[in-house]
């Protein structure tokens, strides 16, 4: 029987009958040798190709319990406690510090919002660094949740902002300053796009991430109109190598041991993170770190459902605005300038000069 596969293929020539131990099995010594050398060479090349995997550490490879850990919303209290225990052990192993980590739940009847007074902000960027320290963000490379823009007076167009201003003293009299962080949207595009529900909006309005569930596709980062999400492109470290060389304990001294599962516990390579309104503080009645550090009181934070809160008063008395309102994301982060809304003052009522024309169907 003849086979014509690739005209002139040399199959027949290489397999002329030669006696030998393998002959009964239909394998000649030469073809057997050739196949073995080929297979061995292939295996060796494959092994060489995957050799970088030898450098994988326990930071990369999850334990079986970690691998099987359920989604945040599906964990029973016992399973959550076990997950917290694993985090405690890991943090203690790495930093020699025992963290106080809990899963802090939202409070009933609370919806947090932020208000930022653009007339007061001086662009000192202390909020940026307080946030990094509070939330155990990577210092190498440094991950920051807050970006402060130096804006020319006369516009609120963020495309005209300078991200990298570097002055000996601030503020500069020709500019105003606009800090931007996660706006904790009521209609968050980032939550909608996540394929595995690793990010969601909590009842108190904070959009959180389960760092143990995120697969690192960065679709949320592409979806966010406020550039509020950050990805761990490499293993986060709390100090640069030169800082560690100068002080081996620097990472431990920088670690903030007050943690919660959905906020500032250490993250790993290949997952997303973002501002969470310091929920480990704010859900216990404290203020976010960025607010506490602010030297000029430009930042206001609180419960919008409480009519007497600072932020409720600001919404009532100031002319506030949100960024990119046209996108319908409904941010919970409001900006305002420090002048009073004239309609909120006790001005005498004045007769107005006429009404707008009625819509055609109304007048019919």
């Amino acid at each position, binding site marked *: 029987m003849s086979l014509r596969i690739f005209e002139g293929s040399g199959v027949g020539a290489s397999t002329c009958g030669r006696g030998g131990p393998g002959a009964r099995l239909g394998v000649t010594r030469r073809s057997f040798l050739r196949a073995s050398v080929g297979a061995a060479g292939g295996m060796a090349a494959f092994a060489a190709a995957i050799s970088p995997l030898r450098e994988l550490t326990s930071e990369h490879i999850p334990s079986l319990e970690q691998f099987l850990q359920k989604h945040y919303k599906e964990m029973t209290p016992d399973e959550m406690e076990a997950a917290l225990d694993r985090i405690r052990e890991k943090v203690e192993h790495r930093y020699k510090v025992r963290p106080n980590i809990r899963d802090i739940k939202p409070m009933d009847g609370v919806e947090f919002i932020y208000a930022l007074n653009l007339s007061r902000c001086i662009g000192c960027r202390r909020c940026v660094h307080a946030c990094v320290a509070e939330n155990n963000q990577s210092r190498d490379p440094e991950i920051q949740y807050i970006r402060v823009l130096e804006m020319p007076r006369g516009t609120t167009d*963020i495309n005209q902002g300078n991200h990298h201003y570097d002055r000996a003293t601030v503020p500069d009299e020709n500019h105003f300053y606009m800090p931007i962080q996660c706006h904790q949207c009521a209609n968050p595009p980032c939550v909608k796009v996540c*394929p595995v529900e690793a990010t969601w909006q909590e009842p108190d309005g904070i959009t959180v991430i389960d760092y143990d569930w995120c697969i690192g596709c960065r679709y949320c980062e592409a979806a966010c109109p406020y550039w509020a999400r950050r990805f761990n492109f490499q293993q986060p470290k709390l100090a640069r190598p030169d800082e560690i060389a100068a002080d081996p304990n620097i990472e431990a001294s920088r670690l903030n041991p007050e943690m919660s599962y959905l906020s500032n516990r250490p993250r790993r390579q290949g997952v997303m993170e973002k501002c969470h309104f310091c929920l480990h503080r704010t859900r216990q009645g404290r203020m976010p770190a960025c607010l506490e550090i602010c030297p000029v009181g430009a930042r206001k934070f609180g419960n919008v459902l409480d009519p007497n809160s600072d932020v409720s008063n600001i919404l009532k008395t100031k002319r506030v605005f949100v960024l990119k309102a046209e996108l319908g994301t409904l941010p919970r982060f409001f900006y305002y300038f420090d002048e009073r809304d004239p309609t909120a003052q006790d001005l005498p009522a004045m007769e107005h000069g006429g009404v707008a024309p009625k819509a055609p169907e109304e007048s019919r």
Partner: protein
Amino acid sequence: MREYLRFLVRCFRLSFVGDWRYYTWMLVLTCIALLGLNAYCKQLVSGLATTGMTDQVSWGLYIANFTYLVGMAAAAVMLVIPAYVYRNEDLHEVVIFGELLAVAVIIMCLLFVTVDLGSPERFIHLFLRFNFPLSMLTWDVIVLNGYLLINLHITGYLIYSAYRKREPNKRLFLVPFVLVAIVWAISIHTVTAFLYSGLGGRPFWNHAIIAPRFIASAFAAGPAFIVLTLQVIGRFTTHHVPVNALRLLRQVIIVAMTINVFLLISEMFTEFYTGADHLLSTHYLYFGLGEHRALVPWIWSAVGINTTALVLLYLPQRNRGLWLLNTACVMLIVGIWIEKGMGLIVPAFIPTPLGEVVEYLPTLNEVLVGLGIWAFGLLLYTIMVRITVPVLKGDLTVDTLHPTEVARMATA
């Protein structure tokens, strides 16, 4: 069942048989694929910091290639529609090679998405909490894997029927799947386009023309690739490739590419005449922003290449053989790769939603991973064609012998 396993084993062994050109081609592809694997292992250890991606430009070469290849998978359906809907006999002979290409290309797509993941070992989370129907990415997971399965079924069924010397049951096992595959092929483009056009925070993507342009450019680049592939198959195997099939594909490419250019002009007009903020990303792509102009030479090359290719296609070419068509096809494959790959993905991130301009340049490691996936895809496709040709020809069936078995007979 036993017969099927034997079929698979024989196919596997057949993939190791060929002449020196076959061995050289396969060896080169294997080496590149292994280099890519090596680069990916480095990425697994050190993280995506081994790529040029940043928080500012968070998708790059991988997603660009993914997007382009989803379009390439359309090649299959552009052969299927004339063959099955319009009963074109010439195309019936080659339609299976389009479907095999779809299989190989979808596997490449899935690989490109996988290498882009920061925590790929957690892919299992997709099965546990699937954000369907809200996330367009879950739609993409469904349509891509579905398209892979449909094409695996069609090609596998045809090949195995030929192997068993059985007449395929077309009405039950073939035509319904082929018709589904046609609709499905459109869906993989549409869904992938929606993945981008649904993001309000990215004005460069956030308009309705993205999906139609996807389909138009896909129906140009896919058949262009098939035109070249069919000629390679015709030259290096004994399979007959009718020239009329190539002529028909040329018509498809001309129509699709003309529509693509028209849509591009509509898009450019709207953007530049309006001159709104939307413009910044488009402006970056075509003219650069200040000293940032990394994509400018690329996109103008693509514009030039695509326009020239279209002109070449329109030239009357009855007596000039196929070289004009082939040149145009090569140009289209390259031009659309630039335009729909990096040209579509990267500018959406520049400037960032906060107006910061950070450019993107892929690293060597990233390029190697990409090349590795391309080589692996070509390797897969070569093996599939290698097996399909003799089986369909009736040279390898259930009662004929395998080349290695011929050797066994010779020694006995």
